[in-house]
């Protein structure tokens, strides 16, 4: 199911059928998109991520992953570090697993190594820092910084990310953990509970329905 299909389906459900009476109405697609994003993040974290962790099978997150083959690498002169902007908003998972993979653009065999943001000090004191020349990366908010091992000749990297729902294109496929397709509607309804009712008048007065 594409993102457009999912929003349309939800709009259809909210317009009638078994939808709770207090939720029935018309919502702007952007509002629905944000509510679906909250629910999808929740499902990825509590269902897909936990299952992957439990089974030690991180391939379970593959279905939610999208590849960005050329993300530009920039140089931060103040910090003397190479970095790149994370091109989209991603699902935040433990150990930054929303960023699944970073490598050279055309050589996935050289996967960059993940580091915790504040562990540079530890690893730079150990043998590993000079034994392995693979670039390391760590995340800082919406940026990814690289270690000194990244060659200055690299101007772009390949990234595999788990995009947040709002970052998907209209025609992108939306993955929902199996058997949770029905739940996504229930959870969106829950999320919509307490929303101000649809305004019927055009008087810019919030006290008037």
């Amino acid at each position, binding site marked *: 199911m594409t993102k457009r299909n999912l929003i349309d389906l939800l709009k259809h459900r909210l317009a009638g059928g078994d939808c709770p009476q207090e939720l029935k109405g018309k919502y702007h697609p952007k509002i629905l998109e944000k509510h679906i994003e909250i629910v999808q993040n929740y499902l990825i974290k509590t269902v897909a991520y936990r299952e992957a962790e439990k089974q030690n099978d991180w391939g379970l997150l593959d279905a939610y992953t999208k590849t960005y083959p050329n993300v530009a690498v920039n140089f931060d002169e103040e910090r003397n570090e190479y970095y790149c902007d994370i091109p989209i908003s991603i699902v935040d998972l433990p150990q930054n697993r929303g960023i699944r993979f970073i490598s050279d653009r055309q050589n996935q065999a*050289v996967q960059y190594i993940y580091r915790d943001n504040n562990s540079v000090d530890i*690893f730079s004191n150990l043998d590993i820092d000079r034994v392995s020349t693979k670039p390391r990366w760590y995340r800082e908010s919406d940026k990814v910084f690289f270690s000194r091992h990244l060659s200055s000749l690299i101007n772009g990297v390949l990234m595999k990310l788990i995009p947040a729902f709002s970052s998907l294109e209209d025609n992108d496929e939306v993955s929902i953990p199996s058997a949770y397709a029905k739940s996504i509607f229930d959870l969106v309804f829950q999320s919509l509970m307490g929303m101000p009712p649809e305004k019927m008048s055009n008087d810019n007065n919030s006290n008037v329905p």
Partner: protein
Amino acid sequence: MNGSNQNTQNAAYVDMEYVASQVRLRMNLDNRWHEKILQFVIDGFAELNLNDTIPNVTTAELTVDSTNIVDFPRDYVEYISIGVRFGGRYIPLVLNTNIVLPTISSCGEIEREIFTGTNGAFDDKTRDGYFNPDYRSYTVGGAFSDAYYRIDHKGGRIIFLTENFTGLEVILQYKSLGISDQTCIPRASIPALRAYVQWTLNNNDRTLSETRIETSRREWIRERNKLYAVNHALTSEEIMDIMRTHTHRGLKG
């Protein structure tokens, strides 16, 4: 080591990345663990080298500085022989524990003296016109007796007692820790390294039972001993020598 993926396939020797990848594959660990696992592999390999499970002898050519001192290589554990190349031959130098080590002044700054001269009283046949009773010809030894050295373990360097050694290449044969970006690991040692990493991880996992941790510790020791036995196995000639040690030919009458 970035190109290791191609170089290590089907090779008798592999690199650290190869071992770390194999451990991750066996234990089903993803990339988030790679740096930690690689450091554990390095620790395990250093451990195997330190206790001589993997014999690792390396040769380095070191340049003597203006104060007749050379620093140890980073991976130095213990020296085997120190010498110079002379006329196409390797000439070992002589250990002299009477050489005074350089003093260390405040804040670790080393006050370097220039060490020159000879072995003093022992080298002169006569003293004040009389025979020198301290003279011992056998103190000269079989090696190159015009230059002596002393190991300064604390300072991590070798001090030479001689003249005109500045800029000379000294050949140091030493037991190495074996850790560098060029390190080659024999495939036979992979099971031991894998067991070491497994034990290290289990040892720090508070969710595991004592039995499980102990099992992995024993597995590590067993693999280490197996590797030691492989690397120190006697050759057939050595075995025959041992068998014949007590065999003597009788007198024929």
